[in-house]
């Protein structure tokens, strides 16, 4: 059996960010990953580093998200220096477009609630009217009547991020074990063993970051991760000269020029097929927002499964039964990558999750049934 300081199960964005963060802390880390059969939300991600919609009614989630977004520029710089890979990060602020009065009123109310909930932490936002918005975004469609804006939002290339994290992890002497599913997990406090394609490995710490796989893995380690799949579909246009200066919630132009159009939230289990009706809805809303998109060709489209906790907020825990076992679950692997590498990983290395993460425990779902 090969021993490490920590085992991270799951090589998507969440797992590889944590594994890289642990390796950077000086731990000897094994990162156990599935093969191409994995659902891998990280490969279907839209690529927003998105802040403005996160944490209505849960200001701790807004704070956690914003801390990550604040640490993103440094992470991107560090990954470029270490790996030579530019992850295409930009933080020009972002807008959420509203196409009718009820959308706009709902948005206005939500943003103001979040400002009030933010307390001293603050929440800088503005509601923009059509005229102001048209000065910012070229070729804005007549259907767009307004938008919310914050300076916190940005975007990045999720595939390059995943590549860069893996490369940086391996360069920090991390051991990457691919094409394997975890078998024969044995848990004891501070002593964890898992069977992999490369033999049994053991460590005093284990981090479960297997996305949708966490639901089944967590109970083996005295943890709970009630995550469910939520399908999202995306369309991508041919590359074009850059015209969009900032991302919207569902439309962003990448550094390379392609325009990504999202998104959908579908409750269809583990079905990853694409549906023309949903693709049509996505395209229609995009063309209402920016009519010039009509002239661009769609060159790729896909569906992928988000990793969704019941209330949409991340779940972080350390096992009480088996201290040393942690879980990390969220649908925002890109946005939270900097928090996972720079904040969460050091907590795991130290052996204790910060009290600020207590509200993210899965215990929040253990509500006794009413009599």
């Amino acid at each position, binding site marked *: 059996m090969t021993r490490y300081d920590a085992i991270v199960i799951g090589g998507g964005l969440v797992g590889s960010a944590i594994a890289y963060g642990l390796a950077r802390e000086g731990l000897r880390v094994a990162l156990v990953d599935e093969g191409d059969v994995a659902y891998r939300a990280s490969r279907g991600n839209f690529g927003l580093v998105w802040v403005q919609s996160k944490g209505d009614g849960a200001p701790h989630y807004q704070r956690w998200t914003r801390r990550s977004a604040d640490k993103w520029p440094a992470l991107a710089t560090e990954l470029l220096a270490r790996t030579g890979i530019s992850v295409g990060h930009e933080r020009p602020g972002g807008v959420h477009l509203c196409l009718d009065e009820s959308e706009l009123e709902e948005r206005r109310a939500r943003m103001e609630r979040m400002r009030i909930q933010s307390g001293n932490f603050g929440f800088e936002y503005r509601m923009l009217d059509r005229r102001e918005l*048209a000065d910012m975004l*070229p*070729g*804005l*469609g*007549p259907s767009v009547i307004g938008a919310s804006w914050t300076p916190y939002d940005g975007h990045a290339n999720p595939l390059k991020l995943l590549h860069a994290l893996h490369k940086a992890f391996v360069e920090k002497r991390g051991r990457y074990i691919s094409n394997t599913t975890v078998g024969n997990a044995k848990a004891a406090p501070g002593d964890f063993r898992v069977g992999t394609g490369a033999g049994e490995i053991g460590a005093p710490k284990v981090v479960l970051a297997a996305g949708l796989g966490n639901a089944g893995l967590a109970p083996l380690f005295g943890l709970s991760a009630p995550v469910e799949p939520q399908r999202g579909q995306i369309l991508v246009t*041919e*590359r*074009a*000269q*850059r*015209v969009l200066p900032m991302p919207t919630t569902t439309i962003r132009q990448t550094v*390379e*020029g392609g325009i990504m159009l999202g998104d959908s939230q579908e409750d269809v289990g583990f079905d990853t097929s694409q549906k023309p009706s949903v693709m049509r809805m996505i395209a229609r809303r995009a063309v209402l927002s*920016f*009519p*010039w998109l009509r*002239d*661009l*060709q769609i*060159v790729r489209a896909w569906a992928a499964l988000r990793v969704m906790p019941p209330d949409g907020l991340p779940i972080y825990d350390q096992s009480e039964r088996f201290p040393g076992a942690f879980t990390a679950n969220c649908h925002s692997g890109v946005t939270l990558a900097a928090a996972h590498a720079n904040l969460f990983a050091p907590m795991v290395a130290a052996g204790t999750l910060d009290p600020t993460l207590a509200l993210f425990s899965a215990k929040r779902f253990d509500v006794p049934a009413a009599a």
Partner: protein
Amino acid sequence: MFRRRPDADPATIAVIVEGRTALVPHGASAAAAVLVAGFRNIRETPVEGRERGPYCMMGICFDCLAEIDGVPNQQSCMIEARPGMRIRRQIRAREIDPGLR
């Protein structure tokens, strides 16, 4: 560089590739016309500006992108050559005219 198959139909369709006239048989692709006209490259990649030309000839590699009859980024290997068709270089990323304000 390229020789036509002996069993091919006679080259009767005239298309214009970057100002040069090329004759191809009925049913040939626009990408075939690019090659017959003597061009190895027909586009410059959007980000790095590298030269690319028809390669897979079956719709997979996207290296044959060209401007065809004024429409940018066309997969020339998937489009049949028509008489009088104008094929031009696709130089880097296509333009967008947001027009509306």
